[in-house]
């Protein structure tokens, strides 16, 4: 008996129309290739498993939402999704590095002293003094809103209640305060960075 191979595009179409078996066939047909591709990048069975699962969750959601429009190119499309998820995995991992206790691990390679040294502390103090000085030159209403927002960390709702103006007015005053600060900083060529 001759078996007829149903092409990917037909399986995708059938799946979109509700035939769940078609998805099973698509996964069976391509699972090894997609999984091997993921494994070749991450070299970890568990992570490969996760990325593979996330890839097909994305595939399923896209197909069910009717957003798939690459008929006939199912595998390259899935591979692209897998590739992007592998990149996401590495990005996440860079942000949260894992440490194994093997080898010559130095805790100082990951810990740093974030407190400022004496010189940087002096620069910061000077910057704070300069900023306070230019804030004092702002018109009274703008100065009041800016101080409440930045130094007292009040919300604009609280500021509007305290000052008796609308939230929009408070927002406007804050905006003009910042614009005016920028103007003064630019005019005097001030450098306010540490």
């Amino acid at each position, binding site marked *: 008996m001759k078996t007829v191979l149903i092409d990917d595009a037909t399986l995708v179409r059938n799946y979109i129309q509700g035939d769940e078996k078609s998805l099973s066939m698509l996964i069976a047909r391509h699972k090894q290739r997609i999984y091997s591709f993921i494994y070749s990048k991450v070299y970890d069975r568990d992570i490969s498993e996760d990325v593979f699962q996330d890839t097909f969750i994305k595939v399923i959601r896209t197909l069910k*939402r009717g957003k798939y429009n690459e008929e006939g190119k199912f595998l390259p499309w899935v591979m692209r999704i897998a590739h992007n998820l592998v990149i996401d995995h590495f990005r996440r991992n860079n942000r949260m590095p894992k440490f194994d206790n093997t080898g010559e691990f130095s805790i100082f390679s990951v810990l740093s002293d974030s407190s400022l040294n004496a010189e940087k502390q002096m620069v910061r103090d000077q910057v704070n003094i300069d900023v306070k000085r230019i804030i004092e030159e702002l018109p009274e209403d703008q100065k009041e809103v800016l101080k409440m927002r930045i130094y007292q960390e009040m919300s604009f709702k609280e500021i509007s209640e305290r000052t008796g103006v609308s939230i929009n007015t408070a927002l406007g005053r804050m905006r003009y305060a910042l614009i005016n600060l920028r103007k003064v900083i630019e005019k005097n060529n001030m450098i306010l960075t540490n």
Partner: protein
Amino acid sequence: MEKTYSQPTSGQKTPQIEPKRETIQFLLSFSQALSVSRTNNLEFEALLN
């Protein structure tokens, strides 16, 4: 004539790397449970058991 020193590959099986059966089963169940409905240009996803 050039001599080749590589090992013959016949008889050596490359390990089959593929996802676990549970992963596939999960995906098929997820697919069966997922339902997408549209109302007034809004799309809703629901997982139905």
